[in-house]
């Protein structure tokens, strides 16, 4: 059996007072697209930095492509590709010069540089623009070029830290198309982080991270199935009364979320006629949806990712709040 592409055991990272990553364990088999999902400040980037040898773990161990990230740093580096959250291209140089420089930095055999470069640039649709300076590229093109560069040396594991952050929906979609194609063509393992719930659906498996810990890890479908219930959102003339009525009549706790009264029930479609018949509060509109990863996140952390980020509390404060409310997790 081939060893896993990534193997992490009780990994922690502490910065002075704050424990950014608090003992995470996981394995990523070869060939998987594995996603780290969580709000900003959950410890995703810190974890990726440790896996990429950019940060030293405080304790625990991690192996990438079979090599230890602390004792075999150079071997890890030879076998991984990286696309950072912030751009790291040299905008003075052309697209081609950037890729060539990368290939030389990694010592790629010189006779293979040209064909490999054409291949990765064609894959991200930038071959025609190879002679343009990076300074003339849009944000989406730069990200695509970074992905191409990360692939130049045929890494075994490609790390993508928030690969679609700050891009428009259409570009985000095309980036995901490349990532999925990559999996088919390149015999590669992909590890990425995102805080976009809808994007996590593209992954084979996801780990939900919150406050430096993994709170759930499985395929998106399994995670959603575990939530079980459908989400019902209703708009009413009087949300307060509606919530009270839902509690009294159906014994269900509803909340107001993003402007609508929201609650979960098994078999949502069958529930709607009862709702209209028995609620006693006029309903203006109703929608029923299968659980999303947002709901999954909420069921594990008791809050939505967006709320988490809007609160924008310091990790230390958050950690304290977490400790004071130990029942906050499902």
């Amino acid at each position, binding site marked *: 059996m081939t060893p896993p592409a990534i193997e992490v055991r009780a990994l922690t990272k502490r910065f002075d007072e704050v424990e950014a990553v608090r003992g995470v364990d996981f394995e990523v088999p070869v060939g998987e697209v594995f996603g780290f999902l969580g709000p900003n400040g959950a410890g995703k980037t810190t974890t990726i930095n440790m896996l990429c040898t950019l940060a030293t773990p405080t304790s625990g161990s991690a192996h990438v492509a079979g090599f230890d990230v602390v004792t075999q740093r150079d071997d890890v580096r030879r076998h991984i590709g990286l696309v*950072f959250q912030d*751009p790291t*291209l*040299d905008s*003075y140089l052309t697209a081609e010069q950037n890729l060539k420089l990368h290939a*030389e*930095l990694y*010592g*790629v055999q010189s006779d293979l540089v040209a064909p490999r470069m054409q291949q990765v640039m064609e894959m991200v649709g930038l071959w025609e623009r190879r002679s343009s300076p990076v300074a003339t590229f849009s944000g989406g093109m730069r990200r695509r070029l970074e992905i191409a560069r990360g692939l130049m040396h045929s890494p075994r594991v490609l790390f993508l830290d928030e690969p679609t952050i700050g891009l428009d929906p259409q570009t985000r979609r095309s980036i995901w198309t490349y990532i999925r194609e990559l999996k088919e063509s*390149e015999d590669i393992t992909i590890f990425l982080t995102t805080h976009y719930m809808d994007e996590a659906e593209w992954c084979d498996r996801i780990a939900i991270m919150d406050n430096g810990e993994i709170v759930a890890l499985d395929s998106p479908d399994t995670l959603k199935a575990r939530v079980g219930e459908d989400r019902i959102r209703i708009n009413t003339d009087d949300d307060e009364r509606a919530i009270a009525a839902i509690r009294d009549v159906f014994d269900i706790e509803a909340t107001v979320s993003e402007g609508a009264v929201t609650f979960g029930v098994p078999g949502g479609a069958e529930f709607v006629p009862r709702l209209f018949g028995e609620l006693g509060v006029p309903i203006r509109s109703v929608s029923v949806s299968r659980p999303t990863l947002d709901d999954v996140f909420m069921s594990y952390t008791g809050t939505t990712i967006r709320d988490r980020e809007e609160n924008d509390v310091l990790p230390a404060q958050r950690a304290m709040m977490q400790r004071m409310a130990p029942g906050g997790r499902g």
Partner: protein
Amino acid sequence: MSAQAPVVRVSVPARSLGSELRAIRIVWRRELLRFASDRLRMVTALVQPLLFLFVLGSGLQKLSSAGTHGVSLKTFIYPGILCIAVMFTAMFSAASIVWDREFGFLREMMVAPIRRSSIVIGKCLGGATVAGFQGVIVICLAGFVHVPYDPLLILGIFGLQLLLAFTITAFGVMIAVRINQMQAFMGVMQMVVMPMFFISGALFPVQGLPGWLEFLNRIDPLTYAVDPMRRLVFNHLSISPAARRALDPGVTWWGWHVPALLEAGVIVVLGLVMLGVAIWEFSSTE
């Protein structure tokens, strides 16, 4: 999209001395590429030295003709200008480390399977080369300030310039490694570069100074580049011994006349020490 061309698979060799030399060459060459693509920088780095040489040199001539024994003030400060032209450019090169950090490219190099020291060494050699080019431009101006185009002189000047450029780049990198923002680096530069230049004796003879200034002059590293440079240039001028004594008295340590070779040695040793510090600092950042 779904072209069935076979995937070109490449592999990355294990690290070796060869791969480090290659890395040094890459960083060095990138420094040159950037310099070539940034013509504005070539010009701006020359503006100040030329201002000092031609404006200050011509303007102050009126006041100082009595003290220069018939030697043009421009000729007198020319050796200093040869040094600072290199110094400014070398500092700009070092600044690119801050620039690269601010704009992310440094990370691309830091995660590559190469040693951090290769990055620093490549950077310093690149800075020295680029500054050398700039130095050549100033050498070309020799005729305008009554300095002969003697091949030996030019070679000597160029050699000293390269040494100085390497040391200054190492000094700049040593500072730049600790700084994250371009503005902060520029601030530090202003605080360090201009005093070093003024104190070095680029604009005045270094004997008979007030005690405090003489002390500062002797601990200013740039002094040990300006002084041999001036001695070298004056060796090729035909001027009176009196003028020579007044304008090129040479640096002394407690009355002992420091030989030019030792001065060059001071520059080299300083450069190597600062290179070492820069490597150590750079390797210990995450």
